[in-house]
């Protein structure tokens, strides 16, 4: 009995931190989403859908495109690290690909702002190389900029997980496919990727959830509408003090994130059974 008590005492501080700093605010904000002028109702959601339906779709589309591109890029990087036959190129890639992980989102936004703008470095280089006339130069500081920022920042993280998983699969399964005549691309797609599917999914889901919560990138790169939900939440709170609609938007973000987590849970349960 006293041992049980001791155990509970030991867990209590951690439990209290989670309960008071995480679960309680979450519940409060969820409840707050349904409160209009002290009474319960759907008013906040009505307002939210009137004002921000486009932004919800925009957010889902942007993050989905980014997730797909991150998946492709990290498979390509992991695949080259695993199957590449040029040791120097593999070593360079291994050294290089992790760097963006250590750069904060706000700095990524800053860098890409100067790189992607109408007279930014990308267009300047293209113009100097004669690939583009100055008149055709366009700014990428819109949805494309956000996608580029997300992919650039999140690919290393997923690639790190995927490359680790690829390195730990049985090399002989790769040799066996090559022995039967599979090209390296087929080995990657048909032999290697299916064996790291779970890791890839976990990485992409974590990435998806991270991107759902990034505020700096849409603020820095996409100063126009439609924009992402995080920017809308900040705007509702900072400019109007409208916590009701902000909470409703937050709840939608949570639903989006947890739906992805649910897909993952279902897939992993299926795999186990």
């Amino acid at each position, binding site marked *: 009995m006293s041992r049980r008590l001791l155990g509970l005492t030991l867990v209590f501080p951690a439990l209290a931190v989670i309960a008071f700093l995480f679960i309680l605010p979450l519940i409060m904000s969820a409840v707050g989403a349904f409160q209009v002028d002290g009474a319960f109702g759907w008013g906040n959601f009505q307002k939210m859908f009137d004002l921000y339906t486009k932004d919800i779709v925009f957010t889902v589309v942007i993050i989905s495109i980014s997730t797909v591109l991150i998946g492709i890029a990290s498979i390509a990087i992991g695949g080259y690290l695993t199957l590449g036959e040029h040791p120097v190129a593999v070593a360079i890639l291994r050294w290089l690909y992790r760097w963006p992980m250590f750069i904060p989102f706000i700095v990524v936004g800053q860098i890409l702002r100067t790189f992607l703008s109408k007279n930014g470095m990308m267009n300047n280089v293209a113009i100097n190389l004669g690939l583009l006339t100055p008149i055709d130069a366009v700014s990428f500081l819109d949805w494309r900029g956000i996608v580029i920022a997300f992919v650039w920042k999140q690919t290393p993280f997923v690639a790190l997980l995927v490359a680790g998983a690829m390195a730990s699969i*049985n090399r002989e399964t790769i040799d066996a496919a090559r022995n039967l*005549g599979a090209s390296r691309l087929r080995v990657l797609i048909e*032999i290697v990727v299916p064996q790291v599917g779970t890791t890839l999914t976990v990485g992409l889901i974590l990435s998806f959830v991270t991107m759902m919560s990034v505020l700096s990138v849409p603020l820095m790169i996409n100063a126009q509408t439609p924009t992402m939900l995080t920017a809308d939440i900040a705007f509702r709170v900072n400019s109007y003090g409208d916590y009701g609609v902000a909470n409703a938007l937050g709840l939608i973000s949570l639903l989006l994130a947890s739906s992805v987590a649910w897909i993952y849970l279902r897939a992993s349960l299926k795999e186990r059974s």
Partner: protein
Amino acid sequence: MERDGFLELRGVASRYGSTQVLSDIDLSIAKGEFVALLGSSGCGKTTLLRLLAGFISPSSGEVKVRHRDVTHLPPDKRGMALVFQSYALWPHMTVAQNIGYGLKLKGVARAEIASRVSAMQAMLGLEGLEARKPQALSGGQRQRVALGRALAIDPEILLLDEPLSNLDARIRLSVRHELRALQKRLGITAIHVTHDREEAMVMADRIVILNAGRIAQHGSPEEVYNRPASAFVAAFMGAENVLSLNGHPDGDAFMLQAGPANEATTVQLAGRHLLPGAVEARFRPEAAHLFAKEEFLPRRPGVAFRGEVLAVAYPGGHWRHVVRLGDREIMADAPQAFSPGMRVAVHVPAESLFLFNSPTS
């Protein structure tokens, strides 16, 4: 060994960094032959197999199949299929997909793949398992799927990398015979890497013994067993008892001088080449015969030693004795037990006594 080879290796060498893994490998293998590459771990046998398969390029030398140079061809252009030690089945594919993958890569029509896969399953006793994943198979079944996957593409040469080492001891014995029977029935050329002497003896037409990256000897199982070319091969093939003797050749015979445990005697050279001086005598425990008194020694060619029994144990079928001969201890088997402390005479028949010039002489 200059027969017209179907698969030929000439002067093959391989280095890994600064380590010479293989050197001067010359080998000629006939069509339909079953060759075992035998050696202890680290002798280069798996490297040689991977080199044949095309996963590594030799640092020098050439590999030819039907007089065609395949030294630098990719793995799939050599007409060889490899069965891996770990089986390397693809865990995300079913048995049927595993077996049919090679055919799918060759662009064979789907219906044709299905019929070839089911024929392969029938041949290997895998009927009804086509929808299973490898995790749901027993070790023996996995091994057969790995074999089926290799055989499905109809290779001319089957490479086997210790395919039996992950099986239970009892299954292994029956799989040896099944694999050998299958190889004979298909008439396929097989190269089998193993560190198991008995497995090589039972399965192979010819055994190639590798030592430190070189071919120590090759020949039929009885040749390497009964006429080992070097002290290494003799020891590897089970002649672990070793005695140091002195002698000199005299015509067709070799005169052994009296030593601490033996009288002077002669043995026939029988084609062996020995220089005068110190020789290393090797024999198997089962080749030695124990006698309680020297008068009982048989009158057949051989060498007799005087010794004392130190220990006796019963490993099954016969009694195994540790006997001290002079300053050496040897093992000798006998149908009945001699108790420790007994003085015995040990007789080794001439044909079972392997003599080699000692490296120092």
